[in-house]
Structures are given as structure tokens and as C-alpha cells.
């Protein structure tokens, strides 16, 4: 990790930071802008050399830290990420798309050509890969910030820790731990709500359960995430399709969630069976 071995060096050297995106909604990059005052303080200490959402400056690297948003969805992206990796010391994926493929990875279960013809009048103009895959499937990744979008607190902690050469405090525990520390009543037990909290990594501050909603797993699987164990319990009161639907969302392609979806025969309502747009009665 950058400067991890010597805070003194960090003090001497202004790290070069880049932010790039692939297939994604830009929401995670916006979290960086949402840091507001903190962002200005950070900008005082680093050189932001590439950040399309914020500046017209462009750089081909090298980067001390490169934040990567989005999944790899086209052949061009697959080539770009390899080039960027070579120019980067610490590569950090930000958000569910970059870390597990994101919501667009749902297409990995469907017939790619069929979907393309459904969506685009001239699918031959579209060059895309059959799958949307996480960055780590293509190059090595040094750190991950989870979430859809990422948490500003975790982003701030990551940047601060990295600048001073400290191990960032990004716990790999269940959302449940945050619920219990906050004193949020468990929505799964008290309300029977389907909640992915027990298998999802913390970092959001138990946002959804605090509003009485089940966790929908946007931070993706935690360490030792026992998707099948949770699915087994949910089967008492839910049918298999409901359970698969709960897991087949933002981090569907992450292996512990994928196992549950595959166990149910794939995500419910595959889009390649949806009626074509032009002929609603077909």
C-alpha cells in the first residue's frame, strides 16, 4: 500500500490520484465530491490528476492511487483496465459494479445476443462483452470500497489512513454488528422482513434496517458470507423465487450470492424472456 511502510515518505511525496470509470452510474465518484470540505483538505495534500466528474485534467498515469468505478462490460474496457493497472501502485475498486459486477451483471445469466437485439434497434453497432464482470476478474486489486454507492465515511477513512500510512478501518463484519451497536431492532426477527444483513459487509451504518427496511446487500458479501445458510432459513416462509430475487440484485454476481441464485435456477424473471418492446402482443 502506498506509503504504508513509512509515513515520513508520505509527508514528502504528494500522491498522484486518479478516478476512472467503466460500466457504472457515476454515483460512487459523486461520493468523492460529496466529501466537500474534506475533499478540499485532501486536494491540498494530493494531486488529483484524473477525475472526469470534477476536472478536465487528463493523465495517462502513473497513479499512486487509482479509484476505479464500474464493471468491465466491453472489450475496450477490458484492455483499458490492464493498461491502467500497469500505471498504478494502489488500485482501489469503488462500489458494487467494480467490486462484484454490479446490477448489470444480472445479464451474465441471460442470452447476451438476445438481450442486445431487444434493447437496441441496431445491435450490430454495439460492441459489448457477454458478461459484466468485476475489476478483480481482470487485474489484481489492492483495496475495495464497497457499497451502492460507497460510504463517504469509508472513503474518508480510506484516504486518511492511506495518507498517513495506517491500515484503514474497514471492518469485514456483518451489517448486524452495526445494527446492534446502534440499537436498531432486528427487522428480520421482529418483523419477518427478508434482510441480507447477516451475510452483507458492514460500512453503511445499518442504513436500511434503521428505517425498518431489510438490508438489500449493497455492500456485497462479507467474509464467510453464508448465503446458503440464510437461504435455508428463508425457505421456511418464502418461496425459492423470492429468495433468489433478494440475492439477485446489486451484488448478484458475487460468489456467495451467486451460489444462492444458481441454487434457485438463476435470477427470477430472466430478461431474455421479456416481450420485445416493438411488439407488445408477441
Amino acid at each position: 500500500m502506498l506509503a504504508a511502510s513509512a509515513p515520513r515518505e508520505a509527508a514528502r511525496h504528494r500522491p498522484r490520484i486518479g478516478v476512472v470509470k467503466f460500466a457504472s452510474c457515476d454515483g460512487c465518484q459523486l461520493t468523492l465530491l460529496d466529501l466537500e470540505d474534506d475533499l478540499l483538505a485532501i486536494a491540498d495534500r494530493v494531486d488529483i490528476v484524473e477525475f472526469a466528474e470534477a476536472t478536465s485534467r487528463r493523465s495517462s498515469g502513473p497513479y499512486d492511487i487509482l479509484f476505479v468505478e464500474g464493471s468491465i462490460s466491453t472489450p475496450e474496457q477490458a484492455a483499458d483496465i490492464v493498461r491502467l493497472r500497469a500505471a498504478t501502485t494502489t488500485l482501489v475498486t469503488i462500489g458494487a459494479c467494480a467490486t462484484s459486477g454490479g446490477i448489470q451483471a444480472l445479464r451474465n445469466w441471460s442470452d447476451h445476443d438476445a438481450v442486445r437485439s431487444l434493447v437496441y434497434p441496431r445491435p450490430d453497432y454495439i460492441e459489448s462483452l457477454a458478461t459484466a464482470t468485476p475489476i478483480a476478474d481482470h487485474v489484481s486489486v489492492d483495496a475495495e470500497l464497497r457499497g451502492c454507492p460507497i460510504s463517504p465515511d469509508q472513503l474518508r477513512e480510506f484516504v486518511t489512513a492511506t495518507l498517513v500510512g495506517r491500515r484503514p478501518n474497514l471492518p469485514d463484519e456483518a451489517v448486524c454488528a452495526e445494527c446492534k451497536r446502534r440499537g436498531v431492532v432486528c427487522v428480520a426477527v421482529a418483523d419477518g422482513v427478508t434482510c441480507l444483513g447477516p451475510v452483507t459487509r458492514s460500512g453503511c451504518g445499518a442504513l436500511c434496517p434503521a428505517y425498518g427496511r431489510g438490508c438489500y446487500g449493497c455492500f456485497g458479501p462479507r467474509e464467510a458470507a453464508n448465503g446458503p445458510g440464510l437461504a435455508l432459513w428463508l425457505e421456511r416462509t418464502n418461496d425459492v423465487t423470492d429468495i433468489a430475487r433478494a440475492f439477485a440484485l446489486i451484488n448478484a454476481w458475487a460468489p456467495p450470492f451467486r451460489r444462492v441464485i444458481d441454487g434457485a435456477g438463476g435470477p427470477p424473471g430472466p430478461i431474455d424472456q421479456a416481450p420485445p418492446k416493438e411488439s407488445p402482443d408477441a
Partner: protein
Amino acid sequence: MTAALPPVADAAAGAFLPRAGLGRLLAALRADGCTVVGPTIRDGAVVYAEIADAAELPAGWQAASAPGTYRLDATGRDRAFDYGIAVTAWKRFTHPPRVPLTTTTDDGLVTSVEPDVPRMAFIGVRACELAALDIQERVLRAGPAGDMDHAARRAASLVVAVECAVAMSTCFCTSMGTGPEVSEGADIVLAELDDGFTIRALTPAGERIVATLELGEATAGQIRAAAEQVAAVRVSIGDPVPTDGLAERLRAAPEHPRWDEVAERCLACTNCTLVCPTCFCTSVGVSSDLDGTTGTTERTWDSCFTLGFGRVAGDANFRPRVADRYRQWLTHKFSTWWDQFGSTGCVGCGRCITWCPVGIDIREELLAIAPPGAPPAPVPWPPSPAAGHAPAPLGTVDPARYVPVDVTAVRRETADSMTLSFATDDQGLLASRAGQFVMVACATQAVPPISISRIREDGLDLTIRNVGPATAALTASQAGDRVSLRGPLGRPWPVESAHGGDVVIVGGGIGLAPLRPVIDEVLRERHRFGVVRIYLGARTPHDRLFVAEMAALSGRTDLELEEIVDRGGPEWLGRVGVVTQLFERAAWTGGRTTAFVCGPDRMMQATARTLATRGVAPERTWVTLERNMACGVGLCGHCQLGPYFVCRDGPVFSVAELGDTFTVEGR
């Protein structure tokens, strides 16, 4: 709140508080300076929270709880305390989920945050919860240094217990011997009847409050009705978990197949531990400003179900599997808690059953893993640490007391390790003994435990291997830098116990660091020892520590020193292989030998086996264990191992004391 006293006055023992007078009791508590915390309904469940008015109590509600489910049903009556127990344990107020600890500045100074504690009255505390408060108090005051924050909170709290009139399906206090009857541990005890409460005070503080209410005596009928009510609760719960011999039965089952089976269902989500009223484990998180000039630490609830809980330097982990973690939790609650604290670690409140999101019922697991009936085969269990030499003396170490020290010299030992010399005139630090360790704080880093590699008249040496950011920062120190040390911590090597006999010292790699003070001590009083043999292993010749010093030792005639490396190189003319080869066929036998061993776990296990074949008794074979030692004083729970906290009862143990905890994986 201290140990219960007998009822102070007959009137107080049998007064009656009409239902309408409940508000007056709350007012009296507030008039006494207390914030009143009690049961109230939030988000469809009863929680403990600050209440301003008796109307906020969950009157007319009763909880239906079962494994993994909880629901409130209307009772149609106006009783306020028929809800069972709340989601939250009282530990939220006595041992809060987040407590700020220290501020560290880049000049190495550590400042402790003083506890800011409100005076609180807890109303609605159940018998099982009183037991839990007592158990946590025992744990967090066990020392060598008690938890100051907890002590302050308990001292500032007043406890109003309410006898149970209704049992939940998940209750099993009767089995654990903690309820349902309230006998001690409260200041005031209420029993709820349809038209009001019998009320008695158990302490002078309670008596004072009750006296202000100016109540009439309870009738014999009211007192009898209250007693019959709680007796009926006992009958309705029965004895779901026969505990006779349970601790021993569990101890005998470390490899029961059920551990793996429950791990398939267990989500390791931490809910059971965080709702548990006795679970006390915490972690310390560090945060810092952007320039790294100021760092702050905060203590948060943690759980033995997280991966990070068993993690040590270099990302090794002692409990990587969920089955390991579940076993750790269950055996601690019902077995090793007795060894450590002389009580059960479970009070039978059933929260872990209700709030397990997949409905795992520990009662069922216990019956499957350690069924009542035939007594288990006797398992050799280590004697308590007191049977060996004593742990570090109590009361000498303030867990929050950091001593700033200056780095006076830095010496590179290997590619990834450095020896830092510190100067200090702190008498506590200078009284360090061989085998002890210190917590090392530098500005914005986590605070790692580092064993002392030399005790000098004017300071200490620490030999540190760079295995992560905190140790990287430390190994980058320069003369003139300042850090803060907390310690000395842990139980030292029992070097004196080797007086009059032979000594064998076996070190593997960085494991030589905590052994060097033993060598120093033995050489300082060389005449007290017989033959001294030192066997050193390392991965490669470049990974050897203190090379010049060891070379000088090998030239001495009053000791034997042999070295071996796993992998030599063309330039290495010495032995190649593992350290046990140095003495597995040696001529000596170890009847009067004491061995001091430090290295990776596997190396120590192999060494202990080989030493046994040479006749060195397990009682005289001493090892020092590496675990996740975060607080260093037995309060955070990370380093718990069988009946021990490694930081407090160790890190030095004899192989006999460790028994099978030394060899069973995942402990």
C-alpha cells in the same frame, strides 16, 4: 452497586406500591439525580431506553419469542412488566457499544479520555439480568487492571428489579441457576400484581428511595400472590438444559461433528454475542486526521464471530472457520467461563435464541454436543495458572497509562526487523521481566503488543518485525523519535524456577526476541544454573536475529549454542533443517532441565514433542503464545484461549498448563 445486603427494614421488605404510584417511584429516582432507563416499545419490540414517564412503559404487551422470531401481543391487561425481557441487554448502559479511549499526538503523547458517566436508574431488571450485571462486573474488574469506564458506570447506577410474572418460550434461567426469583443484586425489587407492586429495598440506597414514597405495608396475601406468581414461572420454564456436568461434557467434545453442522447454519453475524448480556468483547479502532498529527482511539463492541477477532500480525488467523468461532463462543459461555471467572457465562435469558436470524437454539446445540447422561471420559485439563507461577501482580498497570519514551538507538536485525532502544526512568517499565510485553502507541497507528527483547538499567529494547502498517511505522523510527509504551504486561518466563538445573532455550526466527532477556538473566547469574543449551532456528541465514551477539555466545565455554536454518545458501556452512534436529538425538536427557521455547506455533509444538522424548517434563517446558492481544489486561477478550487470556495469564505458559488447547486447531 455492590454485593447485596440483607433487607434493611421490615417495612421496606414488604411495602405495597399502588399501580398509580409507579410515576412517583420514577419521580423519586429522578429526584435522586438519576436518568431513568427502562422498557419501552420501539419499532415493534421492547427495548431499554430513557423513559420520562410511566406511560412509556410497555403496559399491556407481552412478547412471543421463539428461535429467530419475536412478536408483541396485546394482553388486554394493564400490567407494565409482562413483556418478558427487552431486546437490549443492560450492558448498553454499563458497557456501551462505543467508548472513546485516548488521543495520541505525533509527539508520542497519549492522553486518556476520562469517563463521562451519568447517574442512571435501571428499572425492570430481571433476575437473569441481575446475574448478567454481576458476571460482567466480575469479568471487567478481574484485572490486572479493571475497566475504569465500566466501574464508573456501575458505581453510578441504581437497579430496580422486577420479578418475572410471565416466561418467554426462550427463557431458561432455571437451568442456569440465575432466576426467575430475584434474591440479590438489586437496590429495589418490585413484583407486579394486577393492582400494583410489592416493593422491597435490598440496599441502603434502595431503602432511601422507598422511604420517600411513604407506602403502606403489603398484605400477606399480596406477598403470597407475588411469590406464587414467580413460582409458577419457574414451573413453566422447567429445566431445558440440565447443567450437571455440562462444563466437563463440553470440554470433552472439541471435535464433535455437530460443530461443523451448526456452522453450516450459523451466519457468524455476531447477533448472539451482541445481544448477550454477559458478552463483553471489544475492539479498539484508530482514527486520525489527514496529516497524521493526531490519532484517537475508540473502543467498540466486537464479537468472537468476526474474522478479525482472531487475527494476528501478518494476517494469520487462529479461528478462520465459522465452526471454530461457534465452538469458541459456546465453550466459553458454558465451560471455560467457569475456569476463568468461577461462574457460568450464560444466564439463560434466551436473547441469543430469539435474535439469531436463522433461529439457532443454543439449548438444542448443547443437548446435541454435550448431552446429559453418561459422564464424559475424563479429559486432562490444565491446572489453573495459579498452580504454576503467578500472573502479573494485580493493580500495577493502569490499562490507560501510557509512558512516553524516547528512541535512543535503532539497529537493523534482518531485512524486515529492527531493534529499537528506548530510554526511560519509569520505574514500572524498568521493572519489566523477561517474557513480558508492552503495547506501543505511535501517533496514528493501531497499538501492537511487542515483546521486550532486552531489559536495560536505563530502558528497554524492542525487536519489531515489519508485518503491517503499525509495525512498519515503528520499524521506520529514528533516534530521537518518541512513542508511548503501556506495560509491562503479561506473565514473565519463570527463569528462577530453573535455578539449580539445566536450561534449554529454543528459538525460532523472531521468537528469539522474547528469549533474549532469558539468556541475559541466565548469564547474569550463570552460577545458579547447570548446563545451558541454546538452539536457534531461522528460515534462512538472513533471518537470524542478533547475529553478532549469538556468534559471541557460541564462543563461550559455559554454554552450548547451535544454529540451524530451513534453507541455507552457498555461503551457509552450518546446519540445514528444522530446529528439533539440533536436539532430537542429543546425548543429554532432561530430567532436571527447564526449557524456554518461542517461535511459530507449529515449531513450538514440534519442539515440545521432541523435548518430551528427551525427558523434559511438560510442566517445565515453557512456551510463549501469540494471540490477538488488543488490551493486554484481559478485558477485551480477543486472546481468550481455553481457560486463559493469553495476555494476562500468559503469554508464557507451560505445555502442561495448555493441555489440548496447545494442539487442537482453531482455538
